[in-house]
């Protein structure tokens, strides 16, 4: 019987010829990831097992959430990660500054994840790496602790939903519009325990940045993972970065529980209203919603192309007087490239605050926390109650195009509305 991409990667890593949905398997892992929030408790559990780390080259530790550390407690968390990395010779420890950044931006950037590879991370947005044709999923700290010691994890093979993309991607539409539209269609539990496999002629229309944004938010539909096929664009991205990769493609008779159709030509800029990523509405339909803050960044939309989109819209304009616009490049590399391309100058000239790479306000950590009654348009991935501060503040999720236009106009707006 034919297998889809997720099944092929899981079968190979379980040492099996084939697997089917529902089957319980144990897989060997190619990369194991944790951050400054999830690594410290995992390290404590790991120590209870009483074994050495399984492979010091297959572990990535990224202090990105509360860094540069915002207070003494979080400095203690990061120190615990740093001490563990030093004691165990962890090759891929990413210290603030240096060549670091947000975990899901830098792991693909450094080629630590790639086609056919299996990654788990103690962070729910680990599913981002499906963009480069890998299987990647988030786990908790206990799974991570066991993975650090054994290099293995257990999985239930998920059922898969095929997302068939057709049509041409219009101007002013990007990956965020695709994924928010999809979550709006199927709901925040529409892919619960399932895999989202992207397919169809529309895939070729999407840049790697679009694909990272889309795979990143598979979890926002409840998905275990999201995965893209390997094509010319993937090849161009991974060549020279990733060692020994083996792309996977679905068999012609691969099984899917259902197919969801998205015609890219019909998409419009969208925004997800509080307090769920599935509350998707077209920006043109929402009327006037005044805002106080805009955040452009995160593991969803903190890549160079995202900043390019925002800079193009903001060039020659000023951020609205009632708005704080915070731009956060996703990694040191993105930061440098955005500097060289002149985007950071554009942001600063327009009145935006540009930050060093960090998760920052995305999960209510620091660098732009809101008080009661405030509204933010954010390129991040979650708008749960209290996610960016006070329980009575509101987060509206959108792509960098809508975020930039909204920063200038002081209300949620489409890029076309900026003269």
């Amino acid at each position, binding site marked *: 019987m034919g297998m889809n991409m997720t099944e092929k990667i899981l079968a190979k890593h379980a040492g099996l010829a084939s697997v089917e949905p529902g089957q319980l398997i144990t897989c060997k892992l190619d990369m194991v990831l944790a951050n400054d*929030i999830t690594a410290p408790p995992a390290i404590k559990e790991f120590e209870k097992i009483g074994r050495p780390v399984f492979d010091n080259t297959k572990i990535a530790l990224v202090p990105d959430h509360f860094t540069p550390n915002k207070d003494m407690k979080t400095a203690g968390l990061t120190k615990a990660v740093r001490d563990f990395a030093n004691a165990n010779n962890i090759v891929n420890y990413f210290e603030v500054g240096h060549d670091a950044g947000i975990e899901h931006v830098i792991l693909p950037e450094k080629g630590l994840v790639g086609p056919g590879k299996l990654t788990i991370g103690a962070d*729910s947005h680990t599913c981002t790496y499906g963009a480069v044709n890998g299987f990647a999923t988030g786990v*908790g700290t206990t799974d991570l602790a*066991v993975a650090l010691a054994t290099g293995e994890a257990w999985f239930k093979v998920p059922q898969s939903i095929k997302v068939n993309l057709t049509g041409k991607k219009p101007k002013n539409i990007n990956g965020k519009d695709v994924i928010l539209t999809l979550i709006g269609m199927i709901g925040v539990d529409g892919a619960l325990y399932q895999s989202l496999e992207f397919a169809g002629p529309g895939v070729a229309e999407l840049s790697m940045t679009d694909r990272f944004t889309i795979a990143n938010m598979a979890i926002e539909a*409840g998905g275990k993972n999201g995965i893209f096929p390997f094509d010319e664009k993937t090849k161009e991205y991974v060549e020279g970065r990733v060692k020994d990769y083996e792309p996977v493609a679905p068999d012609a008779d691969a099984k899917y529980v259902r197919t969801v159709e998205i015609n890219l030509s019909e998409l419009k800029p969208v925004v997800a209203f509080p307090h769920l990523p599935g509350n998707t509405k077209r920006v043109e339909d929402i009327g006037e919603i005044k805002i106080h803050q805009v955040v452009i960044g995160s593991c969803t939309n903190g890549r160079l192309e995202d900043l390019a989109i925002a800079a193009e819209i903001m060039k020659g304009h000023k951020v609205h007087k009632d708005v704080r616009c915070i731009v956060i490049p996703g990694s040191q590399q993105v930061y440098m490239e955005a500097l060289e391309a002149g985007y950071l100058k554009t942001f600063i000239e327009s009145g935006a605050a540009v930050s060093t790479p960090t998760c920052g306000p995305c*999960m209510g950590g620091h660098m732009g926390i809101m008080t009661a009654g405030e509204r933010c348009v954010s390129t991040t991935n979650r708008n*749960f109650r209290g996610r960016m501060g006070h329980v009575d503040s509101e987060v509206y999720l959108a792509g960098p195009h809508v975020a930039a236009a909204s920063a200038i106009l002081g209300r949620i707006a489409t890029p076309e509305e900026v003269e």
Partner: protein
Amino acid sequence: MALEGKVWRYGDNIDTDVIIPARYLNSFDPKELASHCMVDIDTTFAEKVQEGDIMVGGKNFGCGSSREHAPIAIKASGVPVIIAASFARIFYRNGINIGLPLLEIGDDVEKIHADDRLRVDPEKGTIENLTTGDTFKAHPLPGFVQDIANAGGLINYIKSKK
């Protein structure tokens, strides 16, 4: 072993940010996490919850981040079992891995209300609503996942296999 307790009833899509908001993730001490559990939607929970009380939610309970701080906060509040229509998958794994039984009962959850008293046998997956007389059966855990639960969590399970 049967458990008996009073119900704390919540709705659909209870996310990990409300179970334990990010501002409290600068600690992973279970007692401290428990002291902030659910505050953003229910300020009475952390204060009034009694050892043995049972948490009941709707669809997609525990969606959002992978923070194991969330099931840990609930467990450390004295809650020995969570019942929901369905669970988000990372939360579900985490519950099993830390030895906190999670029972999925689909739409039957509508027949459990705030302050009902339940008798629950997590191993058998049986639930009795002592207030209304209704009984429910949860989906059983598959294969070796039951062994992990029986061992009291993944760390014990791995150690026992050494």
